[in-house]
């Protein structure tokens, strides 16, 4: 196991919530595996720098090259950074425990104004956590409707609305032109000519698959490592997690999924594929799921959703911030979004697995609403 970080990996979701808030120690953010029982040789603080598929060797950053029979590529993704912020203290991304503790320490040292760039899930969780710690928080997002590409225009303002409910200033449809300061960050200049003061900046503008070290390896790279339906990227080479791009036959869609549960499932599936050797292997065709906790709301999305899908709120209302919305595509229910409705999300996820039609889905939802009175 070659790991670029110098510690055995932990669990990442708490890094934008419990650990960032100081409610949990880093040790409490554990992975759901007994790492010390794995019986693997760890190469910690070591990066893979190249792959030779002909000689079947992995090159490492200490100059060594390691032979392999099977290779699992799970180098994940790296957070995008804002240009012009290099060397300016107080500007952060959030990916690793080190990032989390650096933000934590800045928040403790200067309990001033936090500006979060990007209203995606990481940015939104950081904003919520900081706000709940009593900081003044502003969120700056380049898109006019933050989650439009995921859930369409009608529901896309959901997390912006949640922030506003909690007294966070939200600036939509403005980009960051410059980050200014002396040694430390002092302000952001925005594309509409306005200026936002900042003591701490957290940038959450997405990630890039960490494929740089695979250039020239002969593997197909296209927004991730391109795999077949069984996660095989080349004979004896599989990929899993944020870096793997594969055709999910269930949805007839090539996807790359950056969520916690997928990393768990896809890792196991990739390992099984590797062990199947020259056999056909099993198709990996999950119904992806993720959750995001912001303030007292739990947002969960299972399946697929996009701006061109049919959308129907089948339970609750957006106004009460407690609802279930279904997404339909090609005559089937393909996705479900729930806010503080985990039971419904899991029920609908099962129905998506069972390939329920859109028509049947809406009829069933209406029936259930009537029965619930």
């Amino acid at each position, binding site marked *: 196991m070659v790991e670029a970080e110098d510690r055995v990996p932990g669990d990442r979701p708490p890094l934008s919530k419990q650990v960032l808030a100081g409610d949990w120690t880093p040790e409490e953010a*554990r992975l*759901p595996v007994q790492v010390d029982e794995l019986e693997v040789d760890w190469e910690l603080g070591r990066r893979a720098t190249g792959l030779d598929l002909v000689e079947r060797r992995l090159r490492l950053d200490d100059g060594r090259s390691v032979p392999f029979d099977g290779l699992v590529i799970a180098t994940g993704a790296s957070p995008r950074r804002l240009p012009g912020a290099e060397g300016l203290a107080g500007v952060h991304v959030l990916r690793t425990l080190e990032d989390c503790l650096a933000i934590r320490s800045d928040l403790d040292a200067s309990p001033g104004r936090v500006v979060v760039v990007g209203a995606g899930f990481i940015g939104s969780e950081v904003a919520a956590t900081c706000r709940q710690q009593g900081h003044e928080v502003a969120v700056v997002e380049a898109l006019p409707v933050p989650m439009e590409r995921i859930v369409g225009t009608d529901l896309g303002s959901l997390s912006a609305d949640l922030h506003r409910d909690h007294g966070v200033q939200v600036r939509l449809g403005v980009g960051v032109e410059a980050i200014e300061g002396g040694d430390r960050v002092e302000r952001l200049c925005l594309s509409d000519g306005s200026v936002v003061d900042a003591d701490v900046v957290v940038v959450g503008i997405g990630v890039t698959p960490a494929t740089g070290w695979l250039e020239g390896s002969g593997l197909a790279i296209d927004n991730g490592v391109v795999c077949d339906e069984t996660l095989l990227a080349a004979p004896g080479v599989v990929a899993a997690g944020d870096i793997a791009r594969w055709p999910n036959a269930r949805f007839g869609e090539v996807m790359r999924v950056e969520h916690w*549960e997928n990393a*768990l499932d896809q890792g196991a599936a990739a390992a099984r594929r590797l062990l199947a050797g020259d056999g056909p292997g099993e198709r990996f065709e999950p119904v992806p799921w993720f*959750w995001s*906790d912001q303030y007292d709301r739990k947002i969960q999305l299972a399946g697929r959703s996009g701006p061109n899908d049919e959308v129907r709120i089948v339970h609750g209302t957006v106004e009460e911030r407690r609802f279930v919305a279904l997404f339909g595509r090609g005559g089937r229910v393909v996705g479900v979004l729930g806010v*503080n409705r985990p*039971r419904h999300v*899991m029920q609908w996820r099962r129905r998506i697995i069972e390939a329920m039609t859109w028509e049947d889905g809406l009829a069933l939802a209406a029936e259930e609403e009537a029965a619930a009175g």
Partner: protein
Amino acid sequence: MRIVVDFDLCESNAICMGIAPEVFEVRDDDFLYVLDETPGEELRAKVEESVRRCPKQAISIAED
């Protein structure tokens, strides 16, 4: 086997309910209820999968 849930950790993601609805239920109040604290051996595989896939590692099995 006996199901033990750490309710300080449980975030009601309802993953366990998706896997083993015979044992776990998240109700309208958003809290998890264990329907059967001592499920039969035929449910062991499902319960173990629930333990493994709980994002908060809030579920464990006690053998007593």
